[in-house]
């Protein structure tokens, strides 16, 4: 069995990528499952999708906790605890990261910050997507194609048919499907073949079942009494663009501070504004509103 996990943000098309891989494997004659996992859907929030490929019926359901192949569409997700792309990686598995950073540099960065037994591979699918499709977020075809190549059991013919089928079901106009196909075939060619190895089966550890007890209603009922705990939910990773304040142009008018819908801009004792990048979602209202153009947007190039 090949277990593949896709990590992206809402809008990246990772559900479609998992379906392109799923359909392609199905066309190659395999038993397949694919499924997305998302909650309250919204652009920018982490989503995960899964594809299982096997030559026997698949006796698994739901999320993949021990993947053989993980594809990360957006490197900012590497450190997002909700996405957790490192979950369950093992020595036989491959972590593919969509990034302009070289495989070598990325491997070093990962080793320094989040060591994993998995092998690392990077590819700049965003650049290819921008060039062929014209929209950096439309990664479903290129990530799907990379997944097909790395799965190692899918030919270009199946990829082409699967991509067309999945994009037609989304109602994309024919010229756009053609551009996606071109990008997908290029991504397939560019992506190297890397052998995968499934993790050896491990006996399930005993989990220790609890006997639930009734708890006093002030504790055991579904309400939230703590005020203001949204601070715990860091949403800075949602940004595609980062607002940056150029203080030499700032006239301390407070407009960015007042208009920020997240309260992510504060004033210091000198009345200079400061952006809380842990919580700024990158809506860029401050950039739009700043009368002196002191807040500029920069492409979010991430810590990796």
């Amino acid at each position: 069995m090949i277990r593949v996990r896709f990590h992206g943000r809402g809008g990246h098309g990772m559900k479609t990528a998992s379906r392109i891989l799923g359909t392609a494997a199905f066309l190659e004659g395999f038993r397949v499952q694919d499924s997305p996992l998302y909650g309250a859907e919204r652009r920018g929030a982490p989503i995960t999708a899964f594809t299982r490929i096997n030559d026997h019926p698949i006796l698994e359901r739901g999320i993949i906790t021990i993947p053989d192949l993980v594809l990360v569409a957006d490197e900012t997700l590497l450190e997002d605890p909700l996405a957790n792309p490192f979950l369950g990686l093992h020595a036989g598995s491959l972590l593919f990261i969509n990034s302009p950073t070289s495989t070598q540099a990325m491997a070093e960065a990962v080793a320094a910050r989040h060591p994993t037994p998995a092998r690392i591979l990077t590819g700049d699918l965003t650049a290819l997507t921008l060039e062929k499709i014209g929209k950096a977020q439309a990664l479903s075809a290129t990530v799907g194609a990379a997944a097909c190549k790395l799965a190692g059991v899918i030919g270009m013919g199946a990829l082409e048919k699967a991509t067309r089928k999945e994009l037609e079901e989304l109602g994309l106009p024919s010229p756009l499907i053609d551009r996606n196909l071109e990008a997908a075939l290029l991504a397939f060619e560019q992506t190297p073949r890397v052998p995968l190895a499934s993790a050896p089966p491990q006996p399930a550890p005993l989990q220790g079942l609890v006997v639930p007890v009734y708890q006093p209603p002030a504790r055991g009922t579904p309400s939230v009494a703590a005020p203001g705990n949204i601070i715990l939910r860091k949403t800075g990773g949602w940004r595609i663009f980062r607002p940056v304040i150029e203080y030499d142009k700032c006239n301390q008018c407070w407009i960015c501070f007042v208009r920020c819908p997240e309260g992510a801009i504060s004033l210091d004792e000198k009345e200079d504004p400061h952006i809380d990048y842990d919580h700024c979602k990158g809506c860029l209202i401050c950039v739009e509103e700043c009368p002196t153009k002191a807040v500029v947007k920069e492409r979010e190039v991430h810590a990796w």
Partner: protein
Amino acid sequence: MGPQREEMLTGNMAAAWGARLARAEYVPAYPITPQTEIVETLAQWFADGTMQGKFVTMDSEHSMLTAAGAAAATGVRVFTATSSQGLLYAFEVLYTVAGWRVPLVLVNVSRALASPITLEPDHNDVLAARDAGFLQIHCETCQEVLDSILMAYKIAEDPRVLLPVIVNLDGYYLSFTREPVAIPSAEEAAAFLPPYEPHHAFFKASRPLAQGIAVLGGFIYSYFRYQEQLAARNALAVHDEVAAEFARRFGRSYGPVEAYRLEDAEYALVMSNAFATKGKAAVDLFRQRGERVGLLRLRLLRPFPHEAVQAALRGKRAVAVLDQNLSVGQGGITYQEVAAALYHEPSRPLLLSCIGGLGGKEISAGEFEEVLELMKEAAATGQVPGPQLLYTEGEQTQMAHLLDIAGKEWG
């Protein structure tokens, strides 16, 4: 024991009196036959100042129960009432407000469900709600309706429970039927049922709470859902404490089940609600000619009183569960629950299932005779027959005649 005057009250009036003596502060209302008299009466009492608080007419039962739950979540005592199609129209809200852990009381006046649409009672409406997280008390008399509403608030508001309660009475057979009902004084009722003081769901500007939260992640959902189960099971002991205090103050005693002439019985009927009265009359006739027959009335349906059912039916030769409901494709609903309660008994009685009284159909003395014959035959042969619909030859002849009039061919 305080002064209690008796008056002739319908079941609906008894329900309204229950809400009045409980000092319900908020009543969202939507009328439906055969419940309407309850909310009409309460509307009058709020309008003339007899009751203090807010009476609001709603646009549907769905809105009505949503408003009831939301109001209860602010910490006020809430009463509402519906029936049949109305209960089902509010169905998703039953689960929702139970999950909020708000102790409101909902009176359901049982009426059989469409189709064909009808007005007379059976219990498919209230039993459809049996998994929702509401506790359920099913009443046999108008007195029991009033008393059960007062008890229901005291059980629901106990910090060991905090679940809403449905108090059920049969349409027509109780709702429109007058009989003498002892009405406790307002002072006695207030002494029994003090004001509701929530510590978990309230509206205080100084202590904001996010209620009605959404969760993702099965382990979070499981935790809260199972707290409902534990709360409902706690309600067994809380019910008995409340019933003991009620008996002390008012002289009327209620168990989770009622055993009628069951002690030395060889055969037992299991019934609920108003038709249990007919079952008791049948038991009296059997007893007059020396037959050892008794009746077990199911009163507290949620939480289901497994131990009380086991104890009451222990040692019987055969038991017939008369379900005034039908789980289509399965059979009688309470039959399944009684069977589950008896499964681990070392010497359990033979257990027969009868379906009777659907859509308010009469269960005649002659039909009770047949049920006893079925039990005796099962005891003699050890063979338990499949479910038996209580439907007489005379009724079948009448039905054939009606089908002829309707221009239908009788196969």
